[in-house]
């Protein structure tokens, strides 16, 4: 896999390393460790996988195998600032496809569990917005 550019001197990376370093060196800390990096960096660069493998004394391949197993762990750097439109059944019924076509550069996402306020969109901070209309969505995306 092609490694994306990654700044290994960043403050976020340093903080994540400190937090992971405090976890007990036990196998069941693997997912919590990966989640710390995911939350701090929003993805898992190779250096983070290596750090986790070293700390928990697990083979690199093993850590990769876990990291690829969970949909919320990203091995690729996410594209900067993108809106997501929920495509769960309730949102679909409430016109989510119109939200997707009314603006450029949005992605679909599976059910966000806010079905009673459909249609729902998500910003880059994972903040959910309910009862979204094409008018206000166009306005937010423009900002």
């Amino acid at each position: 896999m092609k490694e994306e550019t990654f700044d290994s001197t960043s403050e976020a990376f340093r903080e994540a390393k400190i937090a992971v370093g405090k976890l007990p060196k036990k196998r069941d800390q693997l997912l919590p460790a990966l989640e710390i990096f995911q939350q701090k960096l929003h993805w898992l660069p190779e250096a983070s996988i290596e750090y986790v493998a070293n700390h928990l004394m697990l083979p690199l391949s093993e850590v990769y195998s876990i990291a690829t197993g969970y949909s919320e762990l990203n091995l690729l750097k996410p594209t900067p600032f993108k809106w997501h439109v929920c495509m769960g059944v309730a949102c679909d019924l409430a016109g989510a496809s119109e939200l997707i076509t009314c603006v450029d550069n949005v992605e679909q996402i599976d059910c966000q569990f806010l079905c009673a306020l459909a249609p729902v969109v998500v910003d880059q901070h994972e903040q959910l917005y309910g009862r979204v209309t094409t008018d206000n969505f166009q306005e937010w995306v423009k900002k």
Partner: protein
Amino acid sequence: MNALHPLARLRTKYVAPPISRILIHRGTAGDAVGVSEYGDRIRRILEGKSHLVVDVCSDGANWAAPSATVAQGTFMRRFERLDLNGVDELIECFHGNCGDAARYAGTGEKGITSRMGRNDGSLGDVLSQGAYTALDRVLQLSPEEVINRLSEIGLTGRGGAHFPVAQKWRFARTHSDQQKILVVNAEEGEPGVFKDRHMLEGDPHRLLEGVLIAHHAVGFEAVYIYVNGQARQAQLSLEKALSDAGEAGIISGECWDRNFQLTINIRSGAGGYVCGEESVILNSIEGKRPVPRYKPPFATDVGLFGKPTVINNVETLCAVTTLFDNPPLQTKLISLSGDIPRAGLYEVPVDGAMTWSGMIANAGRNPQEIKALLVGGPSGEFIHFQQFDDVLEMSKLGAGGVVVLNSNADIQHITNSLAAYNKRESCGECTPCREGSERLTALLENTQGNEKKIYELVEIMTESSLCQLGGMAGRPVLSALEQFKHEFDNS
């Protein structure tokens, strides 16, 4: 030793005298429609009294959001859609001028949602509303008496499988291995279901009380609460509750003059529908790939870290706190969405008193305008309008996700997107699901002439998949083909 009874001692220490308050319904639902803006406005208007305006979670009535409730003792009045109606009437009411319509219309008059959206998240607030009273009574009973009580009231699991709770607990209790584990399934990854999130956001102490009751009955060495990775607010509320209850000595047992010898760990999931499957949760907590395990052995024998493990859903453990209710509480949480005016979380009776029609009408829609209900999402089934007079039964509700479909809803489109979802979410561990879900979506592209193949494929997936993701993937498909065949004929 203090002369006061433990619960009385707790209340004396934490409960504040009752005051009139305005409850701003935040939580994931309130925040998604910007309720804070109205909270700020109300605080500005009340100036010196702004400390009486407190943030609480959604009360389940998502349709009413952004909303706030005036709470004066037992009197409650919720003001709905503040974005449309403004806050003037609410302020008037707070000043004592509430008019006639003074009845609170939350979803939980009693039952497990009774404190949801009515407490500010503090220990004192939930104690004043009855938290930990069931645990207090349970501690006077022997473990066997607690399990017998659950058996008497016939409490079953609320995660979808409806296994009798007493049976599961008794099996674990009598297991020869002394080190037992409780895993709380708070993964809730089924599209269309949002009940456990609401419970954890709105009343996490109820779950903790259920956990401690389970501990008294079975005797665990550790508890793992596995929370959906996307349910951040739910996890934060739970963490706060655990920390508050810990400080008060509720978890250690100190405040009950006991030593519970229990550790409660919160673990966050990292995505995937399959992560809600029991054995996947075990693998996930152990730091393994999210794939199901072969059964047998069952978790009650060989579970987390190889130890006998009880796995209970959040709603199940919350329902356990009602074990002394007389008559026994027979309700199920329903996540209602789709084409319905009052969509949200409902706690509905499943004692034979409520029909689908009744539920639809309660939520503001004439049942005759509705074509079908999708119950149970990607592993569920369609309920045809001709069955709307059937009474709600626990065993038919799955995890309680209900999407209301009006006459314009395209059943074929919905069926195809559910099948596509199952295909995407298949973990790939077993062939029937990995290959079957792929083939099923392809066959659904053109159902005409392929019906026999679809039935055969679904039978194979149902019989031989490793877990229920594959095992139930064909259910909505067959249900759609059987009841709405005409909608597929034109494809």
